[in-house]
């Protein structure tokens, strides 16, 4: 079985982000970039399936600027076998990414695609679902456990009410939740070995995919500053504040 894992280059989760003064987006100057944490979980899961003998190849794909190659190298250093970079400087929307991934999948024919449930930059949570729809393949989203049984996939999903387990046919699309696994860090020798693993490059234009914008961002703002909490004296005070200040009851 071949597993395809899309990996996105995002602002590192440790960075305190700043909104640009003109409110067109987030300041990316001199900011540390890393692999989206949910995608690290996806890579880890694919590698575990390979180590367990249920997969024989793990392919990492990234879409975006040239530096996305570094994100692919990180996946290769963790243990993925090879990489595909679809290079573009354009701003990408989930639908563009899903269409590009579909084209990659038509070419590569992986039986399983594992994506992060969302990227920590725009938090869209759409790509996996759109991809499943475009391909007409079953999807198991927000996975906290995966089990391959008799050629079908049992997916335990984190839903609001608790955990839901579904069985889906292969080939399938899975998106990862935080508790699926704890991803490994690349060891230094594996980082060095990854330098020799192949990465092929492509562009959306070569693949014949239209990436004209369909959404426009009107304004990006800092979230409102959180006010300091207070201590109330009595239950009566609490009820009063909840009703008259917070307006929640």
């Amino acid at each position, binding site marked *: 079985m071949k597993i395809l894992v899309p990996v996105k280059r995002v602002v590192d989760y440790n960075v305190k982000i700043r909104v640009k003064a003109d409110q067109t987006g987030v300041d990316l100057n001199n900011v540390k970039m*890393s692999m989206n944490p949910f995608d690290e979980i996806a890579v880890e899961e694919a590698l575990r399936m390979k180590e367990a003998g249920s997969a024989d190849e793990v392919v990492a794909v990234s879409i975006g600027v040239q530096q996305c190659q*570094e994100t692919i*190298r*990180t996946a290769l*250093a963790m243990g993925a076998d090879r990489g595909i970079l679809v290079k573009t400087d354009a701003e990408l929307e989930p639908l563009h990414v899903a269409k590009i991934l579909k084209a990659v999948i038509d070419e590569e024919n992986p039986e399983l695609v594992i994506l992060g449930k969302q990227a920590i930059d725009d938090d869209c949570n759409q790509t996996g679902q759109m991809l499943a729809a475009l391909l007409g393949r079953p999807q198991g989203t927000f996975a906290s456990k995966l089990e391959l049984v008799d050629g079908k996939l049992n997916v335990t999903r984190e839903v609001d009410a608790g955990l839901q387990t579904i069985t889906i046919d292969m080939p399938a699309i899975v998106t990862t939740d935080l508790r699926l696994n704890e991803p490994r*860090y*690349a*060891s*230094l*020798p*594996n*980082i*060095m*070995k990854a*330098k020799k693993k192949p990465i092929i490059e492509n562009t959306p234009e070569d693949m014949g995919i239209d990436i004209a914008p369909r959404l426009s961002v009107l304004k990006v703002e800092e979230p409102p500053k959180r006010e300091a909490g207070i201590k109330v004296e009595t239950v009566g005070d609490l009820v009063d504040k909840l009703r008259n200040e917070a307006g929640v009851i």
Partner: protein
Amino acid sequence: MPGEAMQPNETQRQIRDAARAFARRVIAPNAAAWDRDEAAPRTVLREMAAAGLMGVMVSPEYGGAGADFVAYALALEEISAADGGLSNMMAANNSPVAAAIQQHGTPEQKSDYLTRLTSGEWFGCIHLTEPHTGSDAAAIRTRARRVEGGWRLDGHKAFITGGATAELAMIVAVTDPAAGKKGISTFVTPTANPGYKVIARERKLGHRTNDTVQVVFEDMFVPDGDLLGDVGRGLAIALANLSAGRIGVAAQAVGGARAALEAAHAYAGERETFGRPIIEHQAVAFKLAAMATEIEAARQLYLHAAGLRDAGEEAATEASMAKLFASEMAERVASEAIQIHGGAGYLNDFPVEKIYRDVRVYQIYEGTSEVQKIMIARNLDAIVAGN
């Protein structure tokens, strides 16, 4: 490298990031507790080895990563940012011990000792300093006498980092007292030898997560196969890696200082006085700005020296400058970090008092600040003439 920006390349950054991820997950959450216990579990060194941190520059043939010196120094900075004591264990094992075996070892020493050092099965320590001499390395007295099939060692070593933990010891000893500096040789030999006796474990200001010990060799038999390099070349072998060691200490110092800055920056954003976070008092923000600038200056110095070594140069003066500046900078920055914390900075509950204790030693080992100045002063003609 001169003329090029001193910025790490992609592989070097990946190695730094991997070391940072490891340090954040495995070391940082436990460093305060290990400092209080005055010991880190032996398993941590094995985990460090599994991550590839114990043989960063060793060739893959012997289980190393085969990375360059810049990558090694960056990784060391990351481990030091999480814990100074463990960074020094990493430094001892990588360079001098593994580096010297890689450079001068016999095929047997490499396939046996070097492979065990990179895998983490063994840890290696360096025995140079003695109770009566440190800065003046040529004045050591530990004696190795020729006997049938090998050598017998007698002597007393002091300040040995990891000397009780280690399974392998790199020992510098006098083989021919009449020959002066050319009468010193180096051995690499297992510490399981009954003649290897740890006689004291020091209690110290910082670096409490590792063991610093005194060791005596009592009529310790070391077979011929454990001589490292040629007889009489011991000091040259031990000191050949001195520039490397100094760059390593500079990286350790930058790591400690950076951790102090991170803690002070976070605290300054949270602590409020006179109605605002203290970072909004310009005096505090300016302190943080100066700290960040000093750290960056020190990092550029060590990256420059490390880059020169990767380009095949000795970089002795650059290494001394990096070590001198970075180690003294680290004490200043850690002290300012405590100041920014106010009274809290003096308590065990915050990380900066430990950092302050941990960074002090960078001005002492691998050549004191005074020794670095001697080295730099010797080269003043060339430095002033602009090389």
